[in-house]
C-alpha cells in the first residue's frame, strides 16, 4: 500500500499543496470554483515556517494507535485499515477539541466544511485523499508538489531508501552526501538572512 511520505528538507514553503488540498476537499473539486464556495474549503495540510523560515509541510501522520482516536469523546474518529487512514465522521463529531489536545503534531483544524453537514463546525484533518484514491488518483498534495517534498510511495521501499542513506552516511569512507543540494543552499540562505536580521 502506498502512503504519503514527507521530505521536509525539500520543502520550499510554496504552499501549493495547501491550495490543492483545499480544492480536492471542496464540493466542486477545482480551485477556481472552490474559492467561491460557502463554506470555503480549508486545507488539511499546513505549511508552517521553521525557526529559520524554512518550509515544513505538516500533515496527519495517521498514527497507530492514534492519540486523537483514543481521546475522541463521541467516538467519531476511526481507522480505515484498508488504507491505513485515520478518519473523522463529520456526523458524529461534536467539535469538543479533545483531539486538538491529543494530537502531538497539531494538525487538526476546526471549521465548517463542504463535506460536513451544513453549518456544522467539525474537526477536519487529512484523509489521505481516499476519495481521489478510489478514482485511481494520487493524493492532491503529492500531485501538485513540484519539489519532491511530498511523495506517494510504498512505505517499505521508502524506509529502505532512507536506511540506505543513513547507512552510507555512517560508513567510514563516506563523503557527506547532500540528499537535496539545491534545497540545502536555499535553507542556508534563509537561515543566514534570519540571523542577520536578528543581529541587527
Amino acid at each position, binding site marked *: 500500500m502506498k502512503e504519503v511520505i514527507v521530505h*521536509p*528538507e525539500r520543502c520550499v514553503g510554496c504552499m501549493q499543496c495547501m491550495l490543492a488540498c483545499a480544492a480536492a476537499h471542496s464540493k466542486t473539486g477545482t480551485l477556481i470554483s472552490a474559492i467561491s464556495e460557502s463554506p470555503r474549503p480549508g486545507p488539511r495540510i*499546513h505549511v*508552517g*515556517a*521553521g*525557526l529559520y523560515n*524554512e518550509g*515544513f509541510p*505538516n500533515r496527519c501522520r495517521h498514527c497507530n494507535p492514534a*492519540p486523537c482516536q*483514543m*481521546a475522541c*469523546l*463521541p*467516538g467519531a474518529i476511526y481507522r480505515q485499515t484498508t488504507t491505513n487512514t485515520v478518519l473523522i465522521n463529520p456526523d*458524529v463529531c*461534536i*467539535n*469538543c*477539541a*479533545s*483531539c*486538538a*489536545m*491529543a*494530537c*502531538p*503534531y*497539531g494538525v*487538526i*483544524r*476546526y471549521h465548517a466544511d463542504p463535506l460536513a453537514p451544513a453549518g456544522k463546525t467539525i474537526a477536519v484533518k487529512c484523509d489521505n485523499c481516499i476519495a481521489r484514491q478510489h478514482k485511481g488518483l494520487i493524493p492532491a498534495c503529492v500531485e501538485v508538489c513540484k519539489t519532491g517534498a511530498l511523495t506517494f510511495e510504498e512505505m517499505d521501499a521508502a524506509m529502505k531508501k532512507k536506511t540506505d542513506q543513513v547507512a552510507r552516511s555512517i560508513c567510514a569512507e563516506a563523503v557527506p552526501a547532500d540528499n537535496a543540494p539545491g534545497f540545502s543552499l536555499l*535553507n542556508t540562505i534563509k537561515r543566514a538572512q534570519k540571523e542577520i536580521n536578528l543581529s541587527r
Partner: protein
Amino acid sequence: MHYVIIGNGVAGVTAAEAIRQIDARGQITMISDETHPPYCRPMISNLLEGAVDVSRLPIRGPDFYDRLSITPALGSRVTSMDINADTVTTQNGRTFPYDRLLIAAGADPRPVDAQGMDLDGIFFMRNIAQVQDMIAALADTRHALVLGGGLVGFKAAYSLLKRNIAVTMLIRSGYPLSMQVDETAGEMIQQVLCDHGLTVRTGISATAFEGNGRVQSAHLSDGSQIPCEMAIIGKGVFPAHGFVPADRIDTDAGILVDDHMATSAPGIYAAGDVAEHIDIARQKRWVNAIWPEAAAQGRVAGFNMAGQALAYRGSLSRNVMRMFDTDVMTAGRVSPRDTDETCRFFSAHDPRRGTYRRLVFEDQILAGFVMINQIEQGGVLTSLIQSRTPVKISAQHLLDPGFNVSRLIGR
C-alpha cells in the same frame, strides 16, 4: 481465568477490550450500578445543553457485552470485597469470585455541607440519570445556582445559559477554575460567561436550601438569600474506594497503583478515577480523574491482567473547553497552587485577538500551559509535557501564534 471488572466506565471498557485482545476465552464479568450501556461521561454536559440527545452518548455499539462475551451485572454497586476469598459483593447481595480483579469504580461527587440538601431540584452532575432528572426539572426553572467554579460547575453553567436560564455561580476561591488556570485566564473565562448572562460571586458558599418539597431559595454564607429552583453541586469528586479494605490494599486519596496498574494486593488492579499513579508534570503521586487518562489506564490494566506486560507512563491533568466563541485548553501545572519560585513563566496576551497563553517551565522541561483561543497546536505542548523533552528553543517561539511543530525539530 475469571476476570471481574468493577465499573463500566471508559476504564472498564478499555480494560475489557485489552483483555479480549490477549485472552479470547477467559470469563469477564463487569459490575456497575449504572444500567446504561457504556457511555461517554464528559458528554453529559452536552446532553444538559441540549446539543446531543442520549442516543449519542454510548461509546460502543449496543452489542458491546455480547461481542466481547462479557457477563454484565448492572444496577447494583460493589459494597464489599473479601481478599482472602477473592470475591466481591454488591449491594443487592450478589457475590462474584475472581482470579483477576480490576477496580475501575470511578469517583463520586463531593457533597456539600448545607441544610436542606434533600430538597428536589438539587443535583449532582455525574451520570446520565442525574442529567435526565435535571432536564425534566428545567421547565419549572428560571434561576439556577451552581456551587463550585471548577470544570463541572462551568460546564453546568454554560449548558444552562444555553437553555436561557439565569445562572448564579458561587465560588469559594477568588476566581473560577482556580485548580486549572492562573488568575488572568480565570478572569478571561469568567468574563466570557458573564457577557452571556452568568452572575459570579466569589469568596462565598451556600449554607442552606429552602423550599416546600422543591428548592426555592438558598441562604449564602454572607447572610443573603437568593432565589433558585435548581442547584447543581460541582465541588469536585473523590475516588469511590470505600469498599476497599485499606489494611490490605494501599490507598491514599486513590488506590495506589504501580506502572502496571497493579495494586499492592496480588491479582488486583485499579484504573481510572479511582486510581492514583504518578502525575508527569508534578512528578509525584496524584489522582487525575479525567476521561483520557481513564481510557489509557484501563487499556494498560487490561493487558497486564491478561499477562501482557505493559507500562503506563503516568498521568497528566488536562482539559479543553469551548464556551460560546472562546476556547480554553490547559494541561499540567498552571495554577498558582501548583507552581513556585523554581518555575519560569512566559506569557503572551493579545486582547485584540482575545488570545492568552501562559507557559510554565521547570528548567528546560515544560510543566504546564494554559491557552485561550487559537488552541489548535495545544496538543504539541501537551506532548512536550508528557515526554518531558527538554525544550532547547526560546519559549517565545512556543508563544508565537505562528508556532508549529517544525520549530521543535533540529535540522
